[in-house]
């Protein structure tokens, strides 16, 4: 295989890796949902526990008995695992705006589930974040750095099998 052939193959491989698989979209959706619902559960749980000041931090341990706090912590562990998985195949500057959609989920939950009033500022904020997600979703998810000779050799050995 000539060097030019290998170059074309590498480029084709890189373009393929820019497109997300359905399971990878599912991870991004999981990040949005676990972060927003987890925060909402923690906030609801802490409102039941009551205020904790800096001199009585041990009161936080009582919060661990609250079912909403436990559910919130479980969801946030799920969030951290999905977030790290996403960072293993996508750029930080791709994952960040995509998952900012979680803010929109919280705002919509508070409007339609908790029946809170959303001002024109908040609707504008929601619109801006949705636009931001649209911008990055249309572009590649990962920056590919120049392929090293070693990686080309590995691809070669795979192609020759």
């Amino acid at each position, binding site marked *: 295989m000539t060097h030019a052939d290998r170059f074309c193959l590498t480029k084709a491989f890189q373009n393929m890796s820019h497109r997300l698989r359905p*399971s*990878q979209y599912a991870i991004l959706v999981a990040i949005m949902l676990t972060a927003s619902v987890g925060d909402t559960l923690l906030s609801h749980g802490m409102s039941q526990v009551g205020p904790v*000041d*800096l001199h009585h931090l041990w009161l936080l341990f009582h919060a661990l008995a609250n079912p909403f706090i436990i559910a919130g912590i479980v969801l946030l562990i799920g969030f951290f695992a999905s977030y*790290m*998985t996403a*960072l*293993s*195949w996508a*750029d*930080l*500057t*791709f994952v*960040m*705006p995509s998952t*900012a959609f979680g*803010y929109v989920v919280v*705002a919509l939950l508070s409007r339609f589930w908790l029946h809170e009033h959303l*001002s024109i*500022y*908040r609707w*504008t*904020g*929601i*619109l*801006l*974040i949705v*636009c*931001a*997600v649209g*911008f*990055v979703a*249309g*572009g*590649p998810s990962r*920056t590919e*750095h120049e392929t090293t000779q070693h990686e080309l050799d590995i691809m070669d050995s795979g192609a020759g099998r």
Partner: protein
Amino acid sequence: MHADHLLRTWSCILGVATLAIVGEVLIAAAMRRLGDLDLIRERSGLTGTIRAVLSSPLFLAGALCMALNFFAMLFTLSVVDLSLAAPAIGSLTYVGNAAAAKVFLRENVDSRRWLAVLFVCVGVVLLTK
């Protein structure tokens, strides 16, 4: 007195944002170096994946920064109003992450991504109104 208060408020906000940026960039660098976690899980199972992540020094340093960030955030909320702290820290973290990803992770932050970062920042500030 007023200048002192202003200085303390903004040092807290900058401190929390800096810890968040350093933590996120270190964790992103660790994950990029480890490679696709889905593939590692197929090869060596969930325990193998957790072991691979936990044995990465970059990840451990990043996790330490995130833990410090959590406590710094608690302290900041005791001296700064939430209505100022949350949007200021959120927006600064977004812009700082984009800049740090370009410089340290050599990510291709094109105009499309900068525009997205800007829109998210303004959107986050508007959501807290």
